[in-house]
């Protein structure tokens, strides 16, 4: 391709030389939204699958209780990103069927009360004995509430990827694989947080092994994501090159792929074979990897464009 040099009279800071509209707020929101989704799906699934007495504290009540807290922090970050905060209520005066962000706003409005109800149910039935408000008595419809949270959690997790995936102007983001990829990453981050919280060895081991499988799925989806870009048109291939020799190569392969995925998988396997003691290191690395993935995708996506300038 011929080299292109561009001179512009009339530059806007938001769009020149590349798009620069979303920063740490959106990356943090996408990560925390995915993490909350992971907590809701995993804890909701466990509440449906197992008798309450068999659940460890992490899946039993800590996960359900943390999910709305994590989501609130994420939503606050999203609010910070709005340039015209006074109009935030405008999200809820309309529903735009073609706008992923409108879907997201309404999904959040549904997830929020559902997760609070789940937290209440889980806390009152399975919370630590002696804590006030904990009755230990069966909470009406707890399993139904758990099922509802699985569905809404999955919708929240997929939505965080579709939000970017629907933006056709940015070839890196414009992929239907971003939804499942962010869901898998959110689930693995949720499992990692539960591993950190779980006190019972048996459940911690099970959660860690679930997390290994989720990381495997995330790895496969990342591979497919890159394959789809590498086999696409010129703009898609240029987007893939951001991670293969381009400016995001080092941060992606070091922070996301190695530190956030390969290293914790390796440590987890060593721990399973009894070669290293159990530490908080693998789950912390997985959480870091989830945040790094969102940050890298949010930043690199803004650098990818249809017009390929060399």
């Amino acid at each position, binding site marked *: 391709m011929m080299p292109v040099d561009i001179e512009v009279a009339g530059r*806007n800071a938001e769009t020149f030389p590349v798009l620069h509209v979303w920063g740490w707020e959106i990356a943090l929101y996408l990560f925390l939204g995915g993490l909350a989704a992971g907590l809701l799906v995993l804890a909701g699934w466990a509440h449906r699958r197992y008798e309450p007495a068999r659940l460890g504290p992490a899946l039993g009540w800590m996960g359900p209780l943390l999910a709305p807290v994590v989501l609130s922090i994420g939503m606050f970050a999203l609010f910070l990103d709005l340039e015209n905060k006074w109009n935030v209520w405008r999200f809820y005066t309309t529903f735009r069927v073609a706008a992923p962000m409108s879907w997201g706003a309404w999904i959040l409005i549904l997830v929020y009360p559902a997760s609070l109800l789940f937290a209440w149910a889980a806390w009152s039935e399975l919370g630590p004995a002696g804590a006030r408000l904990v009755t230990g008595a069966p909470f009406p419809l707890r399993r139904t509430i758990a099922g509802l949270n699985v569905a809404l959690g999955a919708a929240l997790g997929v939505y965080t990827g579709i939000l970017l995936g629907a933006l056709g*102007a940015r070839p890196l983001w414009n992929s239907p694989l971003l939804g499942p990829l962010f869901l898998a990453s959110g689930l693995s981050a949720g499992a990692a947080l539960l591993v950190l919280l779980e006190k019972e060895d048996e459940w911690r081991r099970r959660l860690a092994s679930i997390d290994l499988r989720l990381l495997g799925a995330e790895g496969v989806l990342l591979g497919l994501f890159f394959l789809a870009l590498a086999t696409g048109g010129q703009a898609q291939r240029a987007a893939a090159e951001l991670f293969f020799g381009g400016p995001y190569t080092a941060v992606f392969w070091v922070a996301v792929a190695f530190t956030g995925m390969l290293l914790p998988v390796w440590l987890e396997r060593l721990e399973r074979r009894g070669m290293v003691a159990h530490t908080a290191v693998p789950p912390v690395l997985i959480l870091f990897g989830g945040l790094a993935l969102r940050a890298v995708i949010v930043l690199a996506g803004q650098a990818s464009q249809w017009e390929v300038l060399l």
Partner: protein
Amino acid sequence: MPRYGMAIDLRTCMGCAACVVACKVENRVDEDAFRCRVTQRSRGEFPNVHLEILSERCNQCSDAPCVWNCPTGASHYADGGIVLVDESRCTGCKACLAACPYDARFINGRGVAEKCTFCVHRVREGLEPACVSTCPSRAMIFGDLEDPSSQLVRVLGARKHRALKPEAGTKPNVFYLE
């Protein structure tokens, strides 16, 4: 129902950027922001070089991703297919900036998305957009793409032309005469 569009003659445009200045003055655009721009792309290596000058702005796309990505309905179609932003609805979420393949938008000092309006306030009074009426080489033609007798439709029928980034699939309504 009209569908407003624009044609810019690459043979007569000299890249003077009078359109950029006229737009800023007419629309009182923020000090460090622009609704339109003039780009100069140089391609190739000496001695085989080619310079292309384009006066660029919002393409008022007929299938505008800024409109369908807007979560509040702030970005909308007004008369003549012109894409406008309703400031009272805009949250400044910037989805439209990210959705626009032409990077035609920015966030103004009031925290809302702003872009070229084809000078809709002038068009409604029967005037041309400020950039068109200012252009010293008469390189810009504004008109109704649905009106077969308009100068715009006639020149597009007679001259070879192209739109920018047609592969983005947004049905742009700004054309460049080659």
